[in-house]
């Protein structure tokens, strides 16, 4: 009986982590004052490029690196269009999503139809590198041990990124300068801070982090490519909403992604719950599966409505978000 709960919570963490990568990456970009709606596409490109590279080299490290770099290059395109050429951020972001997802299918279908075929994960060394790592002592705690401390390396890495990013914003001078740019680029510029450079760097790093979330999703799905379903499956959009839910704080993003992971995981565990606790949760069986698939998006909608109603000074939303900065525009 407790096994079901342990398994469920364990899955919650596994499903949360790609969201955490997407959310922290987007937080970094939004803190620089840019709104990138291209999370879905950026993750898709990172996923497919990283996964293929990982399979070809049989190395998780290379895969993650390629996922990061390819997604960061997508970020560079976004930065070039919106920072240098002053294009509309919303339109550019949407374009990147369209392009990224299409690129995913293009590469995936192309490889599937080629001679070697789509690379499968199977029982390779790569799969072993992605296997769960037990943290000594901590993993022996009942329930919490398997849920939190027996996970693959990218889970730990994702949490580490969120914590480091939080420290970066709160405690370092470059972090302070970045936040200043997101709030008032004119003020930052007048102090000799290189607004353009900061934006480029952080948009690229943020996009790169999203890319790692992408390859995580691919590996987590066992690397099977379906011609009709993208690995990212709308997680990029949820990440954008989660940024608001997390109030632009990487630390709160950890909490937010776990809450959303919970709803995403219900879809897989509703039957198991109904069987394990027929008295209390038997009704879960009667709800159509489609409802559970839609649940994360319904919650996203509710979160967005609630958070746009809450408008006060404690909001972490960067004041200059979504507006391009042009020095001579006064």
């Amino acid at each position, binding site marked *: 009986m407790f096994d079901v709960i342990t398994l469920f919570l364990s899955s919650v963490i596994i499903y949360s982590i790609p969201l955490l990568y997407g959310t922290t990456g987007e937080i970094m970009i939004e803190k620089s004052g840019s709104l990138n709606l291209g999370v879905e596409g950026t993750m898709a490109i990172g996923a497919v490029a990283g996964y293929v590279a990982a399979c070809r080299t049989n190395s998780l490290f290379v895969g993650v690196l390629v996922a990061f770099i390819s997604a960061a290059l997508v970020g560079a395109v976004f930065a070039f269009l919106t920072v240098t050429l002053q294009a509309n951020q919303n339109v550019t972001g949407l374009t990147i999503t369209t392009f990224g997802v299409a690129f995913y299918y293009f590469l995936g279908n192309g490889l599937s139809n080629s001679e070697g075929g789509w690379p499968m994960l199977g029982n390779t060394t790569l799969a072993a590198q992605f296997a769960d790592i037990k943290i000594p002592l901590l993993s022996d705690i009942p329930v919490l041990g398997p849920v939190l401390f027996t996970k693959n390396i990218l889970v730990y890495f994702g949490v580490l990124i969120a914590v480091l990013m939080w420290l970066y914003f709160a405690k370092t001078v470059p972090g302070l300068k970045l936040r200043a740019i997101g709030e008032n680029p004119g*003020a930052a510029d007048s*102090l*000799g801070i290189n607004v353009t450079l900061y934006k480029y760097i952080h948009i690229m790093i943020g996009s790169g982090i999203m890319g790692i979330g992408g390859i995580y999703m691919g590996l987590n799905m066992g690397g099977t490519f379906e011609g009709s379903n993208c690995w990212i499956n709308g997680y990029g959009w949820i990440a954008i909403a989660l940024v608001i839910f997390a109030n632009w704080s990487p630390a709160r993003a950890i909490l937010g992604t776990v809450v959303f992971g919970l709803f995403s995981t219900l879809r897989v565990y509703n039957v198991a719950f109904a069987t394990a606790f027929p008295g209390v949760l038997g009704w879960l069986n009667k709800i159509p599966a489609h409802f559970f698939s839609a649940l994360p998006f319904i919650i996203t909608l509710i979160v967005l409505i609630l958070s746009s109603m809450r408008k006060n000074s404690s909001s972490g939303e960067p*004041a200059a978000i979504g507006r391009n900065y042009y020095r001579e525009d006064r």
Partner: protein
Amino acid sequence: MGNAIELRGISKSFGSVAANRDINLTLKEGEILALLGENGSGKTTLMNMLSGIYMPDSGSIFVNGNKVNINSPEQAARLGIGMVHQHFKLVERFTALENIRLGLKEGGKFLLGKDTRKYIQDTAAKFGFEIDPDKLVCNMSVSEKQTLEILKVICYGAKIIIFDEPTAVLTVQEIDKLFDVMRKMRQDGHSLIIITHKLNEVMEISDRVAVLRHGEYIGSVETAKTSEKELTELMVGRRIDLDIKRPLMDKTHPLLEIRDLTVKNDEGALAVDGMNFYIRGGEILGVAGIAGSGQKELCEAIAGLRPIERGQMLHEGESIVGMSPKKILEHGISMSFIPEDRLGMGLAPSLSITDNMMLKNYTEAKGIFVDRKAARKEAKEAIDKLEIVTPSTETPVRKLSGGNVQKVLLGREIKSGPNVLVTAYPVRGLDINSSYMIYDILNEQKKKGVGILFVGEDLDVMLALCDKIMVMCHGRLQGVVNSTNTTKEDIGLMMTGALNIVNKEGKTDGIAADSAFEDKKEEADV
């Protein structure tokens, strides 16, 4: 004493327009130099060349006797040149400390340095700044923000500091405090340039005055040896009558009466709190108060743009509470509000004068088509009458200079023939010449028997132009004074809330003796 700055033959053009022509200017070490000139005379361009935002086309700049090239704000900072901008360059959601830390070159990569805090506090103490380093900028008053801006440039090591219209947003008492700080900085060996339109301030604070006109350097005079009159002539290039006229009119019955008006601002806090006042025909009622004391919300409530919480508004005996803005306009109440960015409210910047004229009376046209011909005629009339300088009636409004934009807005409001005119900051950012033209327009309306509510910034102007002045502080009425028997100091005290004279000598300010509020009459007499 040497020269802190010397400009020789500086010229700068934008396209075919010459903003500065062959300017020679010196700033001596340890002096306060006032830079005087009308809008568009090239003051800002010149100062931007000193602070590294623009590069001069020709000419040379000497700082402390050395020829320099200033090609970026950082370079200017390295040379010890700092600028206190008119629009504060502060991050609202940061504390004072964080804002200063942002531009400090030393202090490591981490924020935790205690030395930084001590350095900032010591610098503040040296010049007598009162500042709480952990206060968020968004919770600061305008004066506190400016103090922080000044402290910022001093902390960055500037010895030559340019103040761009620093007094525009301050109260009388705050201006005195600022001038004390400036004198202290001069004592400490700083050299200061102050840009301002206000001649009395030039006379009070500066050692020397340099005058620019149409991008050319006219000359400089020692403040002690000149007068406001002479300075105006230098600036405008001809004699100008500095007295604002205040024609005395027979006042009519109260046109607009406001009782116990309470309005909330966007954040849901009380912006106007139980205000009583009235306007008679043929008078100008000034509204004085520190920026953000509820002036904007008051204007919006009268125009029907903002719902009121409590209270009554009578226009010629009829309640206008709850009416749509359009209905209120038809009733004869017209509002022109010049916001800080000047183009934000009332005009569509990319549309032409004609189109902007139509925005207010498009409903008069029959059918679904607009009557452009009539509107063009109206635009032409306004251009002729108000001497609006524009290439044509079809020029987009944003291409006009500030004064002309404001004239277009005011012209449109007057055209509808209101009998109550609410106007907020109509001369905001205008030079002397354009300002006087606006005053003339208002006085002309007053002569026609219109009641005018004039929300202003400059107390000298208000004392000269308005018949009565009511003072607001935090949305509350502090009193209504007759502008012929009051002083700037009293009004300043009322603005800060230190003085309240609403209930004096047994009568209540803001309630007319011949009120249209029948039921409230006895109350008022008590």
